[in-house]
């Protein structure tokens, strides 16, 4: 059988298309579109009157050639694991399973470990934590020295962590017309954070805080830090940088999406939002959630103006075009879950002498709702007295 040149051309073309489909999986316009590994979730909540006019007063960041997407891992938290941490910190007592956390609590110490991430909290004299110190707080140099020594002694700082500043718990008088006098420092919080590819890791995670109370003495710490693993993909504005290259939004597109979407924190009622800073960052979430991947995000910061004057804001946005601008997760409509006409009103309240009796009520088992479950949520039942 004679095959003409045109057929050769067709067969060759088909082979090229086939190879393209097999060798470079899930590529569209050169970018990977399989978002199954992009499991990281940002805290986003649809606003309440929060689609203001946005004004950009910031220089947009330069877009790096590539930014990695990394695997994260957490320890398997068991009672034994928590007992080991307690021993290492010199704390003794029975470890209790309290749902999302294991807790070891004595009269003086409170240790808890989140099962989802291994996030740790240890606080001494917890019943008076964040209270009024008797001795004055020393200066930042002394506080940092105490915090560094404690962090090193207890191997708190994983690879890549650096001191990132001191926060203070302050106290200030409220006068009839607002704040009066100077704020006094009551407590110091030495903060340690880490970066990835030169970018800060934002969110409640990648955060180690040493609490410094009475006379600058260490009162405890909190640590939310997952292990950063291998680079499993990259993000770029140019396709083909790696086997899996996800499209990275450029800052102009990201700002446009922000204008369309509005603010997604618990803020309400703003008319104008002035963006004074735009930057790339990575994101690690809070300790009570699972997280297996971290990817680049945009962070917009600035202030919002409305009837209530000026409010500072910081807004996160996915930097990968596959996810950016996505609406907050939808959930079942429970708006009619409870018909208040069908339940009896509670009695009018009275001022009661609770202290007489409450201490005799025994503790019961705690049943918590699943973390971020996708199943239908339960109806809220009202239980009359």
């Amino acid at each position: 059988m004679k095959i003409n040149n045109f057929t050769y051309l067709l067969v060759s073309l088909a082979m090229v298309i086939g190879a393209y489909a097999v060798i470079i999986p899930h590529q569209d316009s050169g970018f990977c579109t399989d978002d199954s590994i992009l499991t990281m979730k940002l805290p986003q909540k649809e606003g309440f009157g929060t689609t203001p006019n946005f004004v950009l007063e910031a220089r947009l960041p330069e877009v790096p050639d590539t930014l990695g997407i990394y695997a994260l891992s957490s320890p398997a938290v068991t009672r034994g694991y928590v007992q080991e941490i307690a021993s290492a910190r010199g704390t003794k007592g029975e470890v209790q399973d309290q749902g999302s956390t294991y807790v070891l609590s004595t009269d003086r110490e409170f240790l808890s470990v989140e099962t989802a991430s291994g996030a740790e909290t240890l606080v001494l004299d917890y019943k008076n934590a964040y209270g009024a110190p008797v001795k004055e707080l020393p200066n930042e140099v002394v506080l940092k020295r105490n915090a560094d020594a404690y962090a090193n002694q207890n191997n708190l700082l994983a690879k890549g962590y650096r001191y990132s500043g001191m926060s203070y718990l302050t106290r200030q008088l409220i006068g009839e017309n607002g704040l009066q006098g100077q704020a006094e420092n009551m407590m110091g919080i030495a903060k340690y954070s880490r970066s990835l590819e030169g970018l800060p890791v934002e969110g409640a995670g990648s955060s180690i805080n040493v609490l410094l109370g009475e006379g600058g003495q260490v009162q405890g710490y909190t640590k939310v830090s997952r292990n950063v693993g291998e680079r499993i993909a990259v993000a770029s504005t140019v396709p083909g940088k790696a086997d899996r290259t996800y499209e990275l939004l450029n800052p102009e597109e990201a700002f446009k999406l922000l204008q369309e979407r509005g603010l997604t924190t618990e803020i309400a009622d703003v008319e104008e939002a002035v963006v004074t800073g735009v930057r790339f960052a990575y994101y690690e979430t809070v300790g009570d959630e699972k997280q297996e991947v971290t990817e680049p995000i945009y962070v917009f910061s600035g202030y919002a103006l409305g009837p209530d004057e000026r409010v500072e804001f910081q807004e996160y946005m996915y930097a990968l075009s596959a996810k950016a601008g996505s609406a907050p997760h939808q959930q079942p409509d429970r708006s009619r879950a409870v018909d208040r006409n069908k339940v009896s009103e509670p009695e009018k309240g009275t001022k009661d002498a609770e202290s007489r009796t409450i201490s005799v009520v025994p503790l019961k088992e705690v049943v918590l709702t699943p973390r971020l479950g996708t199943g239908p949520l339960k109806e809220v039942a009202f239980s009359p007295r």
Partner: protein
Amino acid sequence: MIVLRRPLLVSCILIVCLMWTGDAAEYGVSYDSTGGLGINYNSATDFASRMDSCGWYRQFLWGNNAAFEKDWKDVTKGGWDDRYADAADLAFFEGHGSPSGIYFPNDCCDDSKCSKDDARWGDLDMEWVAAHSCSVLADANLAAWAYTVCGNNGAHMMCSHKTTCYARNAGDRWAQLMCSGWSVKGAWFQQHIEKQPSGVTARVIATQATAGDHIWGKGSVASDPNPGDTWWVWTLTK
């Protein structure tokens, strides 16, 4: 029969003792989890589960379209807080906020905002109130929240934020810590350090005396503040 009288009497006393759970203190929760993550639902209901397990009585738990502004608005202003927010010792709101108020997704019964002008807390039963909401305790209206809403009426403390904050399961941790013996203020700041990102600022307003309050049964509680007592603000930026 005479022989059985004493054991019967002792048994009855024992049964009564075992069944009696006392006049539990009350808590109440309203939340808005519409149009976003269900995390506010978790925060509200996990808070309720923890307080239940701590022996507290649930005065109310209303969410989304069942949560009314009037539940938090003073009776003298046309609300019915004498059956809800102010009928509870501890009230928790989880949803949107601004320096002038907290916002409800349902405006069926009045409007959607319980403002500083609507609320008068503590004139009945409330001791502690928290709004896990953005910027309610920003500088703009601090004095109004401290004196007009809380201090002059008898509330002991209010917890919220100076800046914007992120939707988090704050209620679960706050309740867990309070039930473990942390002070109300200490538990609020601790959950803040654990759950919010760097740059977010939490605030608590109280008098010097009430700032060290623990929930009933878990430590000391100061007596109700008097009108004219000085209020202070504690501020913590993570």
